[in-house]
């Protein structure tokens, strides 16, 4: 469902991610753990392109969300002028590709310098697979550490804003392309409101529909943030340390809601420091260290029989 291919992320000279690849299956719950600064939040933010990866590709349901990365396509590399030059200098096919990859020789920002064939191939990959970034994001719900509810909107408006705006935009696009319309804009609004109330009922906050987020407690805010993401009916949910900014007594209510979602089969990627929770809900645990996946496996494998010394060290500090 969600494919991460060889992601690198640099902030200036700082390398945060150094080649991360993973794949999230439908219905799978992946928990990412690791020390602060190991790149776990950055990895999550790269998944829905809030951070643009420096290299690498993100595929969502078979669609490419990032620009194509030439280093991931042998045929593109072979079409480049740099490759032609290296081969004419006597390097074998394998050595030339390796040298190009290792020394970062492709000028992917300037396809023209690598020849028209190279540029055409890159463009073809994008034309065949590329998807508008906003369309991709609509299928991914994101929950932030600091909630990020819209301060200028009521709780209900927070939940309905995106479904209404995007629903109306779709309607406009359909009208332009001459497709038959199955809804009026009013339908979209009333549907969104209905769904918002249902979601609020689910978390028991229906009486807070018309208040502003500033009047809610941290736990309530985070639960509203979660259902705001759910209102877009995403196929995968990304949780970025959802309980780290909460008072201890509110952690439980948020974890309960996430547990509920996961039980209903929601595909999820969760970055968290709650090890007990990670053990309980995860199908797979990823331990990140220094910008790479240092250990990966079932909760039992990672928590009870870690192989990587860094992972052992980390777990001995957090499990007490």
């Amino acid at each position, binding site marked *: 469902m969600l494919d991460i291919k060889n992601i690198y992320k640099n902030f200036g000279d700082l390398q945060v991610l150094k080649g991360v690849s993973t794949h999230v299956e439908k219905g799978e719950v992946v928990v990412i753990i690791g020390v602060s600064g190991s790149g776990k939040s950055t990895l999550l933010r790269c998944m829905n392109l809030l951070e643009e990866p420096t290299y690498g590709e993100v595929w969502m349901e078979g669609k490419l969300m990032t620009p194509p990365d030439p280093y991931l396509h042998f045929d593109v590399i072979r079409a480049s002028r740099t490759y032609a030059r290296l081969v004419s200098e006597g390097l074998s096919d394998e050595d030339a590709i390796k040298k190009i990859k290792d020394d970062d020789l492709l000028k992917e920002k300037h396809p023209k310098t690598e020849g028209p064939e190279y540029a055409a191939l890159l463009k073809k990959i994008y034309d065949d697979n590329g998807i508008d970034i906003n369309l991709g994001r609509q299928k991914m719900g994101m929950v932030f550490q600091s909630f990020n509810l*819209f301060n200028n909107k009521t709780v209900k408006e927070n939940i309905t*804003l995106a479904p209404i705006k995007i629903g109306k935009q779709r309607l406009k696009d359909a009208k332009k392309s001459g497709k038959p319309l199955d809804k009026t804009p009013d339908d979209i609004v009333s549907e969104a409101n209905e769904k918002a109330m249902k979601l609020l009922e689910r978390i028991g906050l229906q009486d807070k529909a018309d208040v502003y987020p500033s009047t809610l407690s941290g736990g309530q805010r985070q639960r509203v943030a979660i259902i705001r*993401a759910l209102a877009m009916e995403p196929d995968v949910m990304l949780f970025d340390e959802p309980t780290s900014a909460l008072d201890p007594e509110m952690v439980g209510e948020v974890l309960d809601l996430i547990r509920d979602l996961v039980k209903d089969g929601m595909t999820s990627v969760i970055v968290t420091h709650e090890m007990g929770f990670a053990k309980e809900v995860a199908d797979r645990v990823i331990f990140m260290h220094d910008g790479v996946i240092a250990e990966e496996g079932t909760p039992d494998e990672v928590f009870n029989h870690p192989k990587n010394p860094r992972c052992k060290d980390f777990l001995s500090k957090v499990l007490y």
Partner: protein
Amino acid sequence: MDFFTNIANIMVKYWKTFLLQGIGYTLLLSLIAVAGGAFFGSLMALAKRSKLKILKGIVNAIVEVVRGTPVLLQLYIGVFVFPMIVPVLSSLPYIYSVAIVLIINSSAYVSEIIRSGIEAVDIGQMEAARSLGLTQRTAMLSIVLPQAIKNILPALGNEFIMVVKETSLASTFFVGELMTAYLKVKGYTYLTMECLVIVGVLYFALTFILSKLLKSMERRMKARA
């Protein structure tokens, strides 16, 4: 006692010059400068955040020049230079060139206020909106700008009050606003102090009403959230 009788007499005789012409032109100039400043100022604030380096550079240069030189000097340059560039202006009264200068001046200040307002809105607000699949434009218009405007309302109000007072500099070119009215009536009556008091009270009344209006607007926006 003479003083107040003089004021009363002046008002009876010259009320049209002060109230109709003076306040009229002052309000007109202020409204044009404020509306134009708000409009072009917002555009300039957005231009400053754009990825186009040239656009950014031009806008930054305008802002620096406007902030770094006196308004009076800008008015002189405007009144003498604009008609050379745009020939139509040379056949029109000075007030057109004056209005253009005031718009440019206030745009520069407003753009800085709006930019700081946008930057003061937590980046998480934009990220949350984008993560839901909203476009940059929608996120800006429905989430970030409303919060930015709420935050900058006091500063914006200050700027508008400054603009009202800056229109007095236009009297250098005798365009008819309040300060021009003062010059005229003083010329007729030779009663300098009395005329100054009248004009002072009128300016104060204008800005006082404006600041009360802005206060009530601020309160209304604070009531929400």
